[in-house]
C-alpha cells in the first residue's frame, strides 16, 4: 500500500462543510481551507488517462502488484511461455454486493475465480490481466483494500498480475467497483480434463461443503436481515488440483460450482458428456448453519454458489487415490464421494434421496428468491 495518509481529512458531506465554515478561523494556524476530498475519492479524472490516472496506477496498482512485467510500463506485457503444452485462457466479470463480506471481498473473488477456472481445466495458472471500472465517488480506502486483497490472493495462488486497465464511470453507473479478469495458464502435456470427459461408472467427488459463499454473501447484503455462522469459502484451488494430479491419472472432468451451484454445474457436465449423473443426498456435505439458512428462506444448497470448491469426475480406479490426495490438502479436508455417473444418455442429474426415492435435479432456473410457500 502507498503512503497516502498524510493529507488532513476534509469534510465528507455538505453538512460537515457547513459546520467547518461556521467555526472561528484560527489565524495563528491558518492552513489551506480548500477541502481535499479528491484525495480520498475516485473522480472522473482518474479514468481520463492523464496525470491523475498515472498517479493512481503507480501509487496503488503498480506498487501493490509489483512485478517485472508491470515495471516495464508498456501497453501490453511480453511474457516467456514457461513450458510445453497447451494454453488455457479464461475470462470473467465480477459484480458483487456487498464489496466486502465475511471470508473475502470482490478483489479476492476476482483473482480466485479466474485462477479456479484455469485450474479445473488442468492448467497451471500463470498470468492475470485485470480491468477495473470504478464508480465516481468510490472511496480510495475501499479501492486500496480491494487491490491489496487482490495482491494477496495472487501471491497465494502464485500468479502474477501482468496487465491492467482503469476506467471511471459516472456516479450511479457502476455500483462501487466492477472488476474484469482474464487469466492465462498452460496445460501440461498428457492432461485432458473437460466437461465432456465423464464416463459411466465414474465417481463424483466434491472438495468440501456446499453453499457457504452464497449464504455468507446473502447474509452480508442485509436485505433479508438474517445472520449465519459461515464465511465465504473463496480460495484459489490450483494447489489442490496439483495435489490431485500428483495422485495419478484418471481425472476426467472438473469444474468449480459457482453461480447456479453444484446442480447447475453437474447438469452442464451431464449435457457435455451425454451421460446421467446420480447424487446421493445422504453424502452431500452441507454445514448445519447453511442448511438452516436455506430452510428458513426456502433455498436448496444444491443451487447456492461456491467460490472455493471443485467437483471432480474421476475413474473408479483412481477415486480412492484422488480423494486421499484431496483430504491431505488444506482446501480439501472435507472432500468426499457424492455420486456416480450412470449409463444412459438422458443427460440428466438425479438425486437418490435419504429415503431411497429418486428425483431429478434440474439446472437453476432464473434467480433464487426467498419464498413464503
Amino acid at each position: 500500500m502507498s503512503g497516502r495518509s498524510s493529507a488532513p481529512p476534509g469534510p465528507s458531506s455538505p453538512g460537515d462543510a457547513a459546520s467547518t465554515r461556521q467555526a472561528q478561523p484560527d489565524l495563528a494556524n491558518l492552513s489551506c481551507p480548500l477541502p481535499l476530498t479528491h484525495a480520498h475519492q475516485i473522480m472522473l479524472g482518474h479514468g481520463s488517462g492523464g496525470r491523475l490516472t498515472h498517479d493512481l496506477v503507480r501509487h496503488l496498482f503498480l506498487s501493490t502488484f509489483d512485478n517485472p512485467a508491470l515495471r516495464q510500463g508498456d501497453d501490453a506485457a511480453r511474457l516467456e511461455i514457461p513450458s510445453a503444452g497447451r494454453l488455457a485462457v479464461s475470462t470473467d466479470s465480477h459484480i458483487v454486493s456487498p464489496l466486502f463480506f465475511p471470508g473475502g471481498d470482490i478483489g479476492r473473488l476476482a483473482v480466485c475465480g479466474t485462477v479456479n477456472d484455469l485450474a479445473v481445466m488442468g492448467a497451471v495458472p500463470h498470468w492475470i490481466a485485470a480491468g477495473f471500472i470504478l464508480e465516481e465517488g468510490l472511496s480510495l480506502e475501499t479501492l486500496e483494500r480491494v487491490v491489496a486483497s487482490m495482491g494477496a490472493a495472487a501471491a497465494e495462488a502464485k500468479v502474477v498480475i501482468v496487465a491492467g486497465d482503469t476506467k471511471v464511470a459516472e456516479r450511479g453507473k457502476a455500483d462501487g467497483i466492477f472488476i474484469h479478469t482474464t487469466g492465462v495458464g498452460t496445460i501440461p502435456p498428457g492432461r485432458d480434463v473437460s466437461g465432456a470427459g465423464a464416463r459411466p461408472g465414474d465417481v463424483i467427488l466434491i472438495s468440501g461443503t456446499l453453499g457457504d459463499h452464497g449464504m455468507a454473501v446473502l447474509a452480508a447484503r442485509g436485505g433479508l436481515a438474517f445472520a449465519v455462522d459461515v464465511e465465504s469459502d473463496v480460495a484459489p484451488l490450483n494447489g489442490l488440483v496439483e495435489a490431485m494430479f500428483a495422485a495419478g491419472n484418471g481425472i476426467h472432468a472438473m469444474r468449480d460450482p459457482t453461480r447456479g451451484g453444484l446442480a447447475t454445474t453437474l447438469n452442464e457436465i451431464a449435457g457435455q458428456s451425454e451421460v446421467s449423473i446420480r447424487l446421493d443426498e445422504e453424502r452431500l456435505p452441507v454445514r448445519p448453519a447453511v442448511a438452516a439458512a436455506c430452510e428458513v428462506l426456502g433455498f436448496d444448497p444444491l443451487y447456492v454458489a461456491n467460490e472455493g470448491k471443485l467437483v471432480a469426475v474421476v475413474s473408479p480406479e483412481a477415486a480412492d487415490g484422488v480423494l486421499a490426495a484431496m483430504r491431505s490438502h488444506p482446501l480439501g479436508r472435507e472432500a468426499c464421494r457424492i455420486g456416480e455417473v450412470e449409463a444412459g444418455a438422458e443427460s440428466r442429474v438425479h438425486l437418490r434421496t435419504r429415503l431411497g426415492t429418486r428425483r431429478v435435479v434440474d439446472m437453476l432456473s432464473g434467480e433464487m428468491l426467498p419464498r413464503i410457500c
Partner: protein
Amino acid sequence: MKFVDEYRRAKDVHALAAAVRRAVTRPWVIMEICGGQTHAIVRHGLDQLLPPQIELVHGPGCPVCVTPLELVDKALAIASRAEVIFASYGDMLRVPGSGRDLFSVRAAGGEVRVVYSPLDAVRLAQDNPDRQVVFFAIGFETTAPANAMSVWQAKRLGLRNFSLLVSHVRVPPAMHAILGAPENRVQGFLAAGHVCAVMGYHEYPPLTDRYHVPIVVTGFEPVDIMQGIYRAVVQLERGAAEAENAYGRAVTFEGNLPAQDLIHRTFEDCDRAWRGIGVIPQSGWRLRPGLAEFDAERRFDVESIQPAESPLCMAGKILQGLAKPNDCTAFATACTPEQPLGATMVSGEGACAAYYRYGRLPVRVPLSEGDIA
C-alpha cells in the same frame, strides 16, 4: 435442525409407508391442500413409497398460483409508478400477469424489492419517507397475521406512505367448492398444517359432517406427510370421516387466538376470484373499511386492464385436482419456469413447477375398485 431432522428419518418414513400398505384394501384419492406439501412430496419422492391404490392429487393451496390475474396486473401497474417502492415476497416476482411480470417491471426501471417479512416492508417505508411503499399482501390464513401486523405497525408509527395490496384467500371455502363440485374425486384431505397452526381445525367438522370425508391436519416433513396419509387411510378403510390432528406439535383445535383476533380486527370476508378456478364466495379477506387508508387499491388509481389469460393454461383444473401437470399440452413445451404461461409453473409450490423441477412423473392410472396391485 431440531424438530426438523427427527421428522426426516428414513426408517420412520418406511415404517409408516409399510403401515399404509398393510392398511389399504382398495383405491383411495387423497388431496393434499397445501402447495408446500406438494413440494415436499415431490422433493422427497414420497409418492414412490406409497402403494398404487393411493392416488395423491394436488390442491389449490398455493396463494401465488391463485392470486387473481386482475390483481397481478394491478400490482404491475402500481410497481411501475415512479414514486412507488413495491415490496413483495419473492414468490410473486415471476408470476405472469397479462404479458409481463414484476421482474420485467424492475428491468424497465420500477423499484421492486423482495422482502422476507412484512415488517421489512414497514421499515422500508420508515427509511424512505419521500416514497410510497406498497406491500403485496398475499397468502392464506398462515400469512394473514403477519400481513395484518404490518398495517397496525404502520398505524402506530404514523406512516402515511405505507399501503397494502391485499389478496388473501381462505382454505375452508375452497374445500367446500372442491367437495361440492359434481366431478369431485377427492375422498380424503391432508389439511394444511401451518394454516391450522393459526386457525386451528375447528372449521373442519362441518365439512367432514356434510361431505363425509376425513380431514387430517398434516405437517410438511416426510414423517408428517406419511403420518397424515396413514391416518387418512385408516379412517377411509374404517368408513370414518373425522377431523383429526396429525401435527399436534404445532397445531391445536382452537388455533392461535391472538393471531385470529388481529386477523378479524384487520380483515373482513369477501368474495374472491381464484385464478384458474373462478369466484368462490366469501373465500377471501380484504381490509376492513376502518383501515381503508392503508388499502393500495384505493390509494392508487389503477384502471382495470382487461386481464388476458393464456388459452393453453389449465392451471385451474390442476388446482382442483382434476388434472395433473403432465396432462397439459403446454407442460414443459410452451410453458416452462423460464417462460411460464400460468402461475402454477412459477411458484415453487405450484404443482407444475414441482413436476418440472423434480422430474416429470408419469401419469398414474387410477385403479378401479376390485383391483389389488
